[in-house]
């Protein structure tokens, strides 16, 4: 009887620790924005192309860009073979003072417009044991094709907060998996647990006004209806910046952002 009570006590303690652990969060992800969902893209009027305007701009980097962390691929000989040159993370892609891999999008100000469905799927490719692209956007409900072009296996593990988490294995070269997101969320991190250096970020929106800056730091949000908008620029280490922009009919306005390295930036 006494031994049984001890066992009950021990199992109870284990259970209690599990319950305490319920409060833990492994990742500090950005909260999903309110009002997400595929339904947000429907029901309202269509944007009048005759009066639509644009918001353009450049994302700059002020100061000396932090050095990107070197990647050691020794854990998988195939990855070593696939990369003839030393690899680094793509965190701070700075050229001539311009910052790439910044996700720029309309955060607020759009009414209840309805938009044409996306033209086709968006693809993320696992090639050379890296994700291509590293930062990109997609519409709610739009098909995401996940491709493994590597002669090694990967798992693609999405860690959203507002959408459903998924972790899919792709053990064979050429495999393709399709996925759709059901709610808007900026940003959803992707990782490969097999190859810990692989990471990507995807912005999920219920409208088409987003772009990722290239090497020249430029972005262009075209076809916006007249109105006042909050434009947000997101960077994986630099955080977010916002700007208020008002455009009239057929107007093109500019919005520029300048990021600085965080005080503790190492990669």
């Amino acid at each position, binding site marked *: 009887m006494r031994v049984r009570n001890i066992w009950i006590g*021990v*199992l109870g*303690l*284990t*259970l*209690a*620790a*599990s*319950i*305490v*652990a*319920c*409060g*833990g*969060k*492994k*990742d500090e992800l950005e909260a999903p924005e309110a009002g997400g969902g595929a339904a947000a893209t429907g029901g309202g009027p269509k944007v009048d192309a005759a009066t639509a305007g644009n918001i353009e701009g450049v994302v700059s980097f002020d100061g000396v860009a932090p050095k990107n962390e070197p990647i050691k691929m020794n*854990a*998988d*000989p*195939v990855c070593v073979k696939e990369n003839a040159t030393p690899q680094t993370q793509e965190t701070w892609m700075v050229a001539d003072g311009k910052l790439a891999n910044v996700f720029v999008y309309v955060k607020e100000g759009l009414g209840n417009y309805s938009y044409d469905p996306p033209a086709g799927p968006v693809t993320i490719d696992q090639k050379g044991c890296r994700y291509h692209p590293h930062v990109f956007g997609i519409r709610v409900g739009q098909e995401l094709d996940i491709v493994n072009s590597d002669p*090694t*296996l990967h*798992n693609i*593990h999405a860690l959203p907060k507002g959408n459903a*988490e998924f*972790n*899919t*294995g792709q*053990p064979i070269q050429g495999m393709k998996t399709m996925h759709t997101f059901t709610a808007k969320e900026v940003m959803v991190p992707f990782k*490969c*647990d*097999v*190859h*810990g250096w692989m990471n990507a970020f995807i912005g999920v929106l219920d409208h088409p006004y987003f772009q990722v800056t290239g090497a020249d730091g430029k972005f262009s949000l075209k076809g916006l209806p007249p109105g006042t908008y909050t434009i947000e620029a997101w960077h994986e280490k630099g955080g977010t910046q916002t700007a208020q922009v008002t455009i009239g009919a057929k107007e093109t306005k500019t919005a520029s952002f300048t990021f600085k390295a965080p005080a503790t930036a190492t990669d």
Partner: protein
Amino acid sequence: MLHRFAKFVAGCTVLLVLAGSLVTSTDSGLSVPDWPTTYGWNMFTFPPSKWVGGILYEHGHRLIASTVGFLTIVLAVWLWMSESRRWMKWLGAGALGAVIAQGVLGGLTVMFFLPAPISTAHAGLAEIFFCMTVAIALFTSPRWIDGYRGHIVSDRNLRIFATTTTAIVYCQILVGATMRHTGAGLAIPDFPLMFGHLWPTHWDAKIAVHFTHRAGALLVAISVLATATTVFRRTTAGELRRPAALLIALVIVQITLGAFTVLSRRDVWINSLHVVCGALVLTTSLVLTLRTWRVKFSGPVRAARAA
């Protein structure tokens, strides 16, 4: 022979604990996204050429766990067939049940993306299973069976001290597992100070869990010291003095590993050895505790008060 096999199973379980801790330390828990299959393969036919990156740790952990599971089946059947003590038959069956439940918890934590409650329960049950294998090895040892040559220590105070210490160590391990699976391992980034002070300057849930683990380490150290001191003062019996001395040594190593886990920013091997050493502290304390309770078990020998 049964005793040797039981010791072998307990030894394999140490390896299993190490493999499991490496999975968490390398953040490889989801590198194999399916269960019980491995990337669609039967676990045992998954090609070794594909054991790369995090898969090496996660798949290796699964294979070692399967081996320990098989050994536990053999052990349970062996006990059931050969043991005259009825409760030993059921202890073997209990160990088998624990290792099966442990496998299911391991699968569930993968399928649900490592939720902290399931992962913590997986860690907590692992310690219980390890304790069961060590207990079986102890109960099947010739010296336990013959009652330590007729001189069994019967000391109520020793029983209370040792039992309390074992309970405290287990609680401390559960707090450590909670810290590990909620990502609170570096919530307090410095050691021995906390944010440069003797007491945390600010609090959140993770800092509280981390702080509790550090406070728990102090409590374990005091408890172990008190128990070992009591053992050395009250008895000359080697079967109690040896685990008491080992316990002190292991706690010193364990606290050192804990400190270096923080200072090294969770170095994979230091972090993993900290988990393994914690399990050894628990089972050493358990052996000491069970030996203090030997007099309460039936046996052919008389009890002799040592103090």
